[in-house]
């Protein structure tokens, strides 16, 4: 059915877009702070409205650490559960800068391109 196929393609494109941006978004949330998983999820949701499922975030954090872009440690909370805090390593900060630079170059150009579409809709 054409309408379902178009809907599926649109959803897949959006999923591809999220996938491409998510790593940059995670590194950006850790740029100024050490955060644990739930805090990273909240920061992604509140600051960028980039909601991602927990089941997607934690394996990515694990990979980024395995690549040497993040470091982590368990911190005992005064009351409650110990939490695993993450922060950027030097290579992680370099990667974040590269990604932010690429994004700042790419995004405005695309915004200019799609502006007539958004204007036409309203």
């Amino acid at each position, binding site marked *: 059915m054409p309408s379902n196929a178009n809907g599926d393609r649109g959803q897949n494109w959006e999923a591809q877009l*999220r996938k491409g941006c998510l790593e940059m978004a995670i590194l950006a949330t850790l740029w100024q702070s050490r955060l644990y998983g*739930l805090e990273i999820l909240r920061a992604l949701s509140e600051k960028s409205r980039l*909601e*991602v499922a927990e*089941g997607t975030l*934690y394996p990515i954090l694990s990979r980024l650490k395995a690549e040497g872009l993040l470091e982590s440690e368990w911190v005992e909370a005064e009351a409650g559960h110990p939490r*695993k805090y993450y922060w950027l390593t030097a290579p992680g900060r370099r990667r974040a800068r590269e990604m932010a630079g690429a994004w700042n170059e790419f995004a405005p150009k695309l915004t200019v391109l799609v502006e007539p579409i958004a204007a036409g809709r309203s």
Partner: protein
Amino acid sequence: MTSQALVDGRIETYLNRLGSALGGLAPEYKDDILREIRTHIMDSAEHSADPVGGIDRVLRLLGTPEELAARYSAECQLERASRSFSPWVLLRTCWQWARLGIRGTLAFLVAMFGYSLALGFTLAVFLKPFLPSQIGMWIGPQGLNIGLEAHPEQMHEVLGNYFVPVIAAAAFLAAITTTQLLRWMMRKRAPGLVVPAADFVAAAEIEKTPAIKLRS
């Protein structure tokens, strides 16, 4: 059963299944994952007015234990394989990488070609004592052939007694070169391309799916 006991039971069942699904991972790595997921579940559910409903939501957003374990394995598999010297680990990883895109497909083709070459050379070395007049490095009108020649009378064998050491060295070289090339390709891969895009579903979409059924 009290609601707290029900909640605890669900969490333990989930973590037990996750631990089983994480399978052959190093124990300290597996323990760290389980500890982090347990903390996340407890933290998330703490702020919910309905303990049982809160746990259901958290577990739904995590995905089934098997799905979560598969994501952990997929995300780290390439990174671990890039540090391995095992042809079997590299070949298996390339096969899974090939399903995700062109780079993985290229790596898989490199692996198949390189390791097939090494295997073929090794086989020829082992068969040479049993088929001395048919196995060799043959040059003739049909070109170059290393291995079994169906028409040896039409071809000229060039290595003679040096066949075994030369082809054994070639097999070793093919295996080492392929291994190093694959390790390099895995290290140079674009980051974030391990898990298929379909897995990057927003939390809002997952909320619509039924709660995960766990056997207590």
